[in-house]
């Protein structure tokens, strides 16, 4: 493994750790579980560093590992989940906020897409790499989701008028 790749990995983890945490929190809604998922993801990515084709691919690989770890953690967590309610959306609901209502009604994959684009500022090709879909699919999904949001906002405005 080249030293450049190791350094790129360390830098990517240091630069992206908050991003990984936010993504894991979206699935797990528990700070401790999110940290565990991020730790597992970093470890998994480190062990597979040799297989990552280039240093540019490391950030997307880390995000993908985090999503996988969070989903695995979610599955394990089912057995010990305390008796308290949890939210189903990747972002906490903000009652009365039409954007929140729109977002919460989306499917998980679409919520993730919007988070990666508008919260984490990933480029479309990076998102495509994270989600394992062609770049064109990312563009068309984003376009469709924004169209739907525009419609929802128009409805909201006409309702308020």
């Amino acid at each position, binding site marked *: *493994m080249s030293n450049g790749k*190791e*350094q790129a990995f*360390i830098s990517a*983890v*240091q630069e992206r*750790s*908050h991003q990984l*945490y*936010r993504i894991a*929190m*979206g699935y797990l809604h528990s*700070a401790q579980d*999110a*940290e565990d998922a*991020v*730790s597992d993801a*970093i*470890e998994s990515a*480190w*062990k597979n560093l040799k297989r990552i084709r280039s240093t540019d691919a490391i950030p997307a690989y880390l995000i993908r590992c985090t999503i996988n770890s969070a989903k695995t953690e979610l*599955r*394990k*967590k*089912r*057995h*010990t*989940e*305390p*008796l308290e*309610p*949890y939210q*189903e959306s990747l*972002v*906490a609901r*903000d009652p009365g*906020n039409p*954007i*929140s209502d729109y*977002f919460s009604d989306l499917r998980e994959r679409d919520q993730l897409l*919007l*988070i990666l684009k*508008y*919260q984490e500022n990933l480029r479309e090709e990076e998102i495509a790499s994270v989600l394992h879909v062609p770049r064109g699919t990312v563009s068309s999904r984003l376009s469709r989701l*924004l169209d739907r*949001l*525009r419609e929802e*906002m128009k409805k909201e405005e006409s309702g308020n008028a």
Partner: protein
Amino acid sequence: MPEQKLKNFLHQNMPEPPKDFDERVHLHLARLVTQEEPKMKRVPGFIIAFALILVIGMTTALAAFNEDVNQLLYRIWPQAAQALKPVNLSCESQGIRMEVVSATLNGSETLVTMTMQDLEGDRVDETMDLFDSAILQLPYDGSGTCMQTGYDPETKTASFAVYMKFDMDKWPAESDKVSFRVSRFLSNKKTQTVDLTPLIPGEITETVSMPVPAIRGWSGSPEAGRREAAKEKARQLMVLNTDNSLEIPVVDGVTLTGIGIIDGVLHVQIRYTDILHTDNHGFLTLSDKSGKKYEESSQKQEVGSVSWFGENYDSWEEYLYDEYPEDLSQIVLQGEFTTADPAVEGDWHVTFPLSVIREETERQSN
């Protein structure tokens, strides 16, 4: 603009990590880079502690010994590596020696490197977990994290780095003393995947049930708005009768206690021994012989599992499948179980003046 509104919503509602998250990431990276890096030799024992001491120039004899490690540590967390000060105090309890090798108090943050060595047996190993019991005692609220950084099988010594952050309302006095304490640890921790299929006795049939005892947890995938109803359903669930427990050992600390059908739903019951002193836990995967997987909880059933405490903090956990192979002889049931020996308890603590580990710059500024 909808994009901007969406951005604002996400920025306002996505959670940020806790204050000491970065340090925990540093520790994790340090452990990975020093332990897992295939290019570097795995140096037995004291690896991080020695390396950190080297970094601050306490020892020069080992400089060539671990040049790579030093460089990596500097890259990962240079501030902490530079700030560590030697403590070298030890104590003994239950035939186990603890040594605080070095420590630093920098602002409201502390980093301690320490080792534990079993002088009598094999209770200290590479899987050792201080079970949230390692603490630097200062008169403030604090929280932290601990990570094993190395293990030397020759001397049965494990090394750790313990990071803590305190909410300080005032600076400690120059004359204050500080104690570092460990009260228990787990070892012989292992995760094993076990095929439970051959352990299933005879045919799976409709079976005797009982109301679930007071549950300590549950899982499920109810639709939005059905969460409370599903929780109530978990509380009212009928489970396999523990009086007819199968008592089939799976691995140390894990017992298959039942499998059967109640009202058309497949139930699998597992007992984890004394989870408060072992942290035993696990999860199951149900599939058929063609490899098709069946999720534990579907939208229809709403409750995927329930758990409750038995005697001596045994945890009974029952997994429910409302979809499973029609031909029950085709069932393949696998479990992934993490277990450990019962916690070793003792009183390991050393006390030293705060001035030994406090940053010079802070003393001057006070």
